[in-house]
């Protein structure tokens, strides 16, 4: 996938576990784990906002676009 989720890096930076983040943003650990491992197909703005509030960061700190040769750009 061309969009990378850097949740792990931010959690490490903030010395926070996935379980703690789950409790703060009111999302299950299972769903956050899907997001963290890059298996999610989409993210709601409300989820992104809640994570940004909890980790005190910007959406751009969490998501990174990486050029993927298997998916040529138009």
């Amino acid at each position, binding site marked *: 996938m061309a969009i990378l989720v850097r949740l792990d890096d931010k959690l490490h930076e903030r010395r926070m576990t996935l379980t703690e983040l789950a409790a703060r943003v009111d999302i299950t650990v299972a769903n956050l784990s899907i997001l963290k491992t890059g298996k*999610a*197909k989409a993210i*709601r703005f409300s989820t992104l906002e809640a994570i940004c509030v909890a980790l005190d960061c910007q959406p751009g700190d969490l998501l990174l676009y990486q050029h993927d040769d298997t998916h040529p750009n138009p």
Partner: protein
Amino acid sequence: MTPASTQALGLARPVIQGLIILNGLYTLVISGLLVWSFFIDGWPERPLGFDMVNAHPLLGQGLRAIVMIGIAGALIVHFVLRHLRAIVDTVRVGDPFNLENARRLDRIAWGVVALELLRVAVAAIAAVVWEAGRIEAFSFAPWLAVLLLFVLSGVFAQGARMREDLEGTV
């Protein structure tokens, strides 16, 4: 779900199951009738009471062809009922919006098309060997059902895609 649809759903499986059994019995009976017609003396005038003096010379063969079409129709009905039962089962377990159900509805629609074409064939044979207009070749309702089934198939396919999108959303 509305109370009416809940009741209909509860009733649907036993009704479909019963129809599958009845259709199986019907297939056995008309298959037996077809085989029997080859062994009985004076087919078809004696068992069916036709006046062969005024009847078409191919009446016997024509009636056998109609019975054969009837057997083919029963096999299609079996195919349709089995698909319908599978769809009802997915509704009962709470997972109706999947692509397999869309494909099932598509196949049911084609099954109904095939049944209507068989009806045209039966009417054509009956018109030649028996009496024109005795069996209706066209009925509006089944073709409307075909249209509705194809539309429903599209709705299910779209629903399945939307659900798939939602499943990967965090």
